[in-house]
């Protein structure tokens, strides 16, 4: 049963998983390939120092000449977490709302399987794909660091990339809850990605205002990266702050999906 409910949809996302992994791996490898240029270059650091402090903070450009600053500013402040969140939303959307509206779930929903299990299995397959993308990103990060001489504590890098994966899973779970409630793929995709971008803007821009700064802590991006995981060991609560709402959203989706009609093609 599990093989049919989780294994089959995972088989369906294999190709997407491969391409997302290739894309992220290329981004990480190519970026780190430029590390030797920045290493020890005082010019870049001086140029960044000329920028207003708020801008430097907003774009995560502090200590750009250090390995942690370089990785944060180029990859893990914004681009990698956002791309992974988009991957999670797209994969979950494809397996749930999109397949439903296109009639690809009809045959499976007509089998003696609980609808909740079928949808949850598809979310699990998509999130498994996110986990694989995360692991591949981690592997490429380590390989590229070794190749291009970027020396940084491996546990800090691992924490950061795991946090990226958990943040992506949270957005995937949000997409799942939306798909379970509405079966509107464009809304799931738009709102899922929109929430990820708004979450980033909250942590990037709101701290620039004393009034708005407290609101930045509402963002999952703050829960994930507020502790500067490339510099400081990540507190356990940050992992839980991402994992718990993920589980809650998966539960919400599982509950609501039985209270509506299945969309027809």
């Amino acid at each position, binding site marked *: 049963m599990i093989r049919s409910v989780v294994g089959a949809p995972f088989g369906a996302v294999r190709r997407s998983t491969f391409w997302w992994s290739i894309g992220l791996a290329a981004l990480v490898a190519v970026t780190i390939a430029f590390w030797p240029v920045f290493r020890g270059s005082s010019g870049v650091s001086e140029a960044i120092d000329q920028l207003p402090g708020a801008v430097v903070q907003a774009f995560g450009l502090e200590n750009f000449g250090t390995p942690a600053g370089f990785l944060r500013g180029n990859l893990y402040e914004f681009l990698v977490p956002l791309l992974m969140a988009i991957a999670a939303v797209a994969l979950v959307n494809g397996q749930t709302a999109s397949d439903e509206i296109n009639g690809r779930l009809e*045959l499976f929903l*007509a089998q*003696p399987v609980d609808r909740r299990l079928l949808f949850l299995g598809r979310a699990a397959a998509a999130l498994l794909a996110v986990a694989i993308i995360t692991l591949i990103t981690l592997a490429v990060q380590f390989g590229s660091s070794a190749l291009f001489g970027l020396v940084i504590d491996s546990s800090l890098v691992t924490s950061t990339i795991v946090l990226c994966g958990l943040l992506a899973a949270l957005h995937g779970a949000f997409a799942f809850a939306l798909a379970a409630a509405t079966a509107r793929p464009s809304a799931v995709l738009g709102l899922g990605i929109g929430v990820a971008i708004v979450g980033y803007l909250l942590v990037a821009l709101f701290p620039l205002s004393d009034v708005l700064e407290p609101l930045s802590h509402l963002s999952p991006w703050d829960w994930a990266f507020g502790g500067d995981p490339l510099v400081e060991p990540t507190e356990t609560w940050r992992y839980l702050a991402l994992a718990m709402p993920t589980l809650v959203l998966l539960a919400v989706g599982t509950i609501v999906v039985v209270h509506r009609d*299945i969309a*027809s*093609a």
Partner: protein
Amino acid sequence: MTADMLLETHGLVKHYGRVQAVRGIDLAVHRGEVFGFLGPNGSGKTTTIRCILGLLRPTAGRISAFGLDPIRDGVAVRRRLAYVPGELRLPDRISGRNLVEIIAGMRGGVDARRCDELAGRLQVDLRRNLHDLSTGNRRKVALLLAFLADADLLVLDEPTNGLDPLMQREFLELVREARAAGRTVFLSSHVLSEVQRVADRVVVLRAGVAIASGTVAELRGRARQHIDVWFAGPPPEAALRALPGIEGADMDGRRFTGVLTGSIQPLLRVLADSPVESMQVQEPDLEEAFLDLYAERA
């Protein structure tokens, strides 16, 4: 629900917002019969079926399948039911064999020998990727899955869409075999010829309402028959014109034509005492009965 009743709906209503797709349908499907569910596109057939499967929640009314409620007891209902969707969309990047294995995993296994036998009869290559199959061959895979399932009730929505005439014949043979094995077939279609060849009873839908039900013979009996009689001598014109159910009676020399609704017995009695040279009664097919019913209700 009586012991031989497999599926019943009472006052089934389904609205999509302001659209009233189904407006109070009563159905009673008996064990071991082929039940024809007829109607043009948009008449509410698929909506009714999706309510029976528990995919849609009825706006009002009640459904009982195997004595169970498809919403509350959906898994138990679907365990005893196999379904071919009208709008058939199969996964793209797997083979027919993979799909059989996935469905087998959900249904608790399938008979591999029966699977191969059905694949041979339906002439479908299960090794091929579903993405590469034609519409007709994809339909065959779905039919194979339905006939392969160990189900008491087969719900087939427009099952012959895309099948060539040879395969349509094989499909009807499979339906007859299923009935002979004691299974019940709920055959939804707008292709009247296939329904009249295999159905025991028929319900005709129009605009979300059942406008007629009965056996195929009963529906035919309610239809108009075209009468064309040639007489060797003087025709009994007055008696012919006075026949109950006769319309458009026309006497052209020694030829009488008209359209008769209802029993043909009074006509035969009149003709028995007359010098009939030749006679032609065009037997109505279900399509004619169908169109007449629409005309009546319009």
